[in-house]
């Protein structure tokens, strides 16, 4: 039965969930599920997985922008139809993997991908800088301090040599979130790029009572900075600017409290986080640079700062050492020295439990 806009209940299907995960497995994956023996990275971006039965599957990993059009997906489909019997997958970090079951098609696939300009860069495996996980930015969200896609593109252009090579001490995971809500996983990344607002919201008193539920706005503020206030005849609110940490929650609840500001907003950079349990335990990213101005279209200062950090790490990190492990070994005083980044008062924590981060020993390096 065709869709009938006047009778939505007709023939309605709900709660069917996603297609089952194995519906789109290549046959070799289906047959060897749970029976893989080992894998090897043949060259950056090209993996082989070998099953106990001796069966093999090759994966060619390419970077993508995450924000992609249906035409680009169709082009990927054309490629997968030609070399992969129509099978491909996406990784958690927005890369695409072409799944090759027939070894004779591997090299032709690689050659084909390389022949298509800059659409399908091969890499993102091993000790590389793989794709940047990121959020929406100006493309689609309402609270961003910075764009996401443009910053990611600019950083990846600059670090491109590391995407298709294995020359770093360990893998480097970069993430970007365009505001403090951090819809992404930035807080535990080797390098995190975070959009920050630096001005509290302004209040459009004439609109507040018409477009906002005042109690909800008050409840939304994590630092309890918002109080109700009458402005003449108008029911409105006031904000204790000294308590505001620029999270934008109140704006989400109430569009009469805008906080974006082209000149106030910008980028903070964080370093040394990780999520894997390998060698060292998971770690949060810590502040490296509190503020860099918003510089569209290519954010040169932010890009160069990230590059400086990567290069200092590439020069000083030991094999298998993640950025955070490297910093823990050399100490923060050395980190700021080696990267040439300025240490400022913003680096010293003054939020809750701040004293956990102060140095309570006479051990440090001169």
């Amino acid at each position, binding site marked *: 039965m065709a869709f009938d806009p006047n009778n*939505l209940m007709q023939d*309605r299907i*709900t*709660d*069917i969930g*996603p*297609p089952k995960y194995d*519906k*789109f*497995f290549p046959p070799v*994956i289906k047959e060897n*599920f*749970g029976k*893989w*023996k080992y*894998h090897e990275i*043949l060259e950056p971006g090209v993996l082989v*997985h070998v099953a106990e039965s001796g069966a093999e599957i090759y994966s060619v990993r390419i970077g*993508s922008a995450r*924000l*992609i*059009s*249906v*035409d680009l*997906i*169709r082009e*990927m489909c054309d490629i997968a139809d030609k070399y992969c019997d*129509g*099978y*491909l*997958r*996406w990784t958690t970090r927005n890369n695409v993997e072409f799944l090759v079951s027939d070894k004779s098609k591997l090299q032709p696939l690689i050659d084909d991908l390389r022949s298509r300009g*800059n659409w399908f860069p091969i890499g993102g495996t*091993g000790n590389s800088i793989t794709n940047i996980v990121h*959020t929406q930015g*100006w493309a689609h*969200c309402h609270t961003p301090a910075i*764009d996401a*896609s443009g910053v990611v*593109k*600019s950083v990846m252009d600059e670090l*491109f040599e590391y*995407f298709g090579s294995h020359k770093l001490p360990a*893998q480097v995971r970069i993430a970007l979130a365009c505001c403090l*809500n*951090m819809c992404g996983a930035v*807080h*535990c990344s080797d390098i995190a790029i975070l959009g920050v607002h630096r001005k509290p919201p302004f209040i459009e008193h004439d609109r507040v009572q018409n477009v906002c539920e005042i109690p909800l706005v008050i409840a939304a503020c*994590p630092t309890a900075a918002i109080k109700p206030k009458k402005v003449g005849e108008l029911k409105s609110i006031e904000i204790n600017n000294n308590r505001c940490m620029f999270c934008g929650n109140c704006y989400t609840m109430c569009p009469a409290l805008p906080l974006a500001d082209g000149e106030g*907003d910008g980028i903070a950079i964080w370093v040394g986080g990780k*999520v*894997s*349990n*390998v*060698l060292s335990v*998971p770690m949060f990213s810590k502040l490296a640079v509190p503020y860099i101005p918003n510089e569209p*279209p290519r954010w040169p200062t932010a890009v160069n700062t990230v590059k400086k950090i990567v290069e200092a790490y590439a020069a000083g990190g030991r*094999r298998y050492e993640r950025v955070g492990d490297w910093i823990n070994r050399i100490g923060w005083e050395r980190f700021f020295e080696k990267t040439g980044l300025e240490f400022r008062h913003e680096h010293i924590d003054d939020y*809750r*439990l701040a004293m956990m981060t102060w140095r309570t020993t006479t051990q440090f390096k001169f």
Partner: protein
Amino acid sequence: MAQKHATPMLDELEKGPWPSFVTDVKRMAPKSKMCEDWLGLMEMSYRDKEGHWKHGGIVGVLGYGGGVIGRYCDRPDLFPNVAHFHTVRVNQPASKYYNTQILRQMCDLFERRGSGLTNMHGSTGDIVLLGTTTDELEPIFYELTHDLGMDLGGSGSNMRTPEGCLGMSRCEWSCVDTQDIIYDLTMEYQDALHRPMFPYKFKFKASGCPCDCVAAIARSDCSIIGTWRDNIRIDQEAVRAYVGGELVPHAGAGGREKGSFDIKAEVVDLCPTRCMEWDGKTLKIWDEDCTRCMHCIRVMPRALRPGLDTGATILVGAKAPILEGAQLSSVVIPFIKMEPPYGEFKEFVEKMWDYWMEHGKNRERLGEMIQRVSLREFLKACDLTPDPRMINTPRFNPYIFYDPAEVPGGWEHDGVAFRQRHQA
């Protein structure tokens, strides 16, 4: 054909070796009015250094409380074709395997009924159809469920679309079947996914081993991470082959040169628990000391493999920094067998949800509630027994809230008897 809106700033992002989203969308613009205006709006954002989207209002499909994010542009006068630009979250098949047939169907649907732009994928894991209008939502949902066999994902205060690593489908280290676990949870809790019933969002993520490729420990209210309790399997022949330079260490992740591998410096001495020994012929592991950090296994994948008594560690409470500060998930079940139909695990989940729904405040993530009520209350509510594996260290403050039930006489003093012993 000339572009509708000039985009001199965005055009700068067409340069360079990384794929350009600008070039991609510009290719679409001649056949999509939404793409055309989206480019103009983006250019304006680049110029103003401010976004131009307004927060959403409630839009969605009948009977569902999530899956669509309302979005309106604040300059419909200039860019009428993106006046409405809602997002539809579509639940991805676990760990994102596709064939080209289903992808082409999705592309056709979204070109016909939306902007033709997507996120593959959103951070939660969903397929994101970026940009459509309110009147297209029901038709999109109808076609998704009828023709594609797909359904919406989560948004709002509900269970969000669960996601896992690719697990046993292609990874030799996976100790649990992450894909089946994710699929099973997604199907079992469809109601919680589509109809907000929680104080705030709730996320499951599953990784097959402690490498945690989906960052479960940092990004999910309930993290399921595969592990094992017995011994690392060792193939001594293969260890010698690594040492002898016949095999490439680290599966080639650090380059492919052979022969330079120093097992002592690169494995034995780096082992965080110092539980390995290499005498030149045999590798010995004191498994009772191993904390399963995966390092030796990932460096010599053809020689070492996780054990066979496999299951998962369950951790809860990760959340982003807003409010009480960021949290990683904390261990609450050090080991659980994860076998279908996952009854023991689901019992835990339901106790946890019941407690959270009763005690959680509006917009309080699980981790925040646990911080407020204490881990001990949470453990009690879920019938879990305290275990040293749940902590890094016992407390180092003396402010213990003793349970009156465990003190003889509870909180009552015998004042009369006291004064018989002590003068006032």
